[in-house]
């Protein structure tokens, strides 16, 4: 798929988020997008960062079986993440 090629190209060039491609491609996109508009559109960067957080929590809960509230409750999924020791 052509999209995958573009995604891979992005992952290769993104130092901060490229290594997440193998785990969840969406994270590469959200992270790199947020990073690219920190100075030009901080509001969009913040919204993307939030999407990144939700997507990561969702992936953990549904894909890797993290013990949490279950699927389809993405807004509260971040709450089930481990707390600081």
């Amino acid at each position: 798929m052509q999209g995958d090629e573009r995604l891979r190209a992005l992952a290769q060039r993104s130092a901060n988020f490229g290594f997440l491609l193998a785990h969840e491609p969406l994270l590469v996109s959200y992270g790199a997008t947020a990073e690219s508009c920190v100075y030009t559109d901080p509001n969009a960067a913040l919204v993307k960062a939030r999407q990144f957080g939700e997507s990561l929590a969702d992936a953990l809960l549904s894909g890797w079986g993290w013990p949490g509230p279950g699927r389809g409750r993405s807004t509260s999924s971040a709450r089930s993440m481990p707390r600081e020791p």
Partner: protein
Amino acid sequence: MHRTFEDVRKVGNRAVHEHYADSRAALTAVRDCFSLGLWLHRTLTGEREIRAFLAPEPTGDVADGALLKDLDRYRADLVAARTNLQGKTSRLHAEQEARQAAEAQLAAAAAARAELAALVAQVTALETDLSARAQHPPTVAPRRRDALVERARRASKAPLTELETREAIDEMLRAAGWVVADVADLDLVNHSGVAVRELVLASGRADYGLYVDGTLVGVIEAKREGTSLSTVEVQSDRYATGLTAEQRMNAWRTPLPLRYESTGVETWFTNALEDQPRARQVFGFHRPETVASWMVQSQADPGAPTYRAAYRAGGERAVQAVSLRRDRRAGQGESRHHVAA
């Protein structure tokens, strides 16, 4: 980790509902995302490699002092993470090299910014498609899940950089009663136990040289967490035999009998006074007075078995005999160190 999630969520909510926009907050949020992503990566792969956040550089002038301070901090973290002390002639030199590498990395990132932005624009259009694909079925065995949770806990504590490792070792040495000093302000007269940083030997550089009562008795090799300590052992062996002429004069015995390898988290010890020396894990460094008592015993009776050798040869009774003799000689028993020795 939970707090980082909460920070990203809250500031994101503000952005959505109040149209909050601030470059410093955005940069912090992106850095938080990086930390979360790294935590996920470490949780899933168990990798302990050190990665540092590469902050995007502003294109124009920045008036926000707090933002500039943040950028400086990220740059300093990047340099610290890239500082590789292995095989370098001095710490200053290693830091200079790391700074150059970090600057090159930042410059390369700035040069690739336009290309990255174009790619981002293309990929953003794919996000709907991607999120539809992201719905994995939950098929994880409880055992694998438990392992994952355990790894996630470990991953929330970042591995130490080489500089942090040295700080941790300095702290451990001080806690065991050693004076930690640089070669320049080495004072062997007024202190019983002195650990000298970056001791130059004929065969290379030891991260620490250990002096007890003015005599060189051992070396410590510092390693970054995640490196296999068995290869370090070979290296310490090399340091323990290759001394300069002056060091040989000061050395208690050659090769130096005490060799430690430490990551600041995990420490291994080899005592060449044993008849069959092998590395074993210890909870900390031995105290200088403990080492001094070994030296006295070994000099009084070169054939005297160490605690471990006695244990291997004669079992418990022999160990008790060695232990009692040591207590009598040392005047006061340090039973804790007998166990460790």
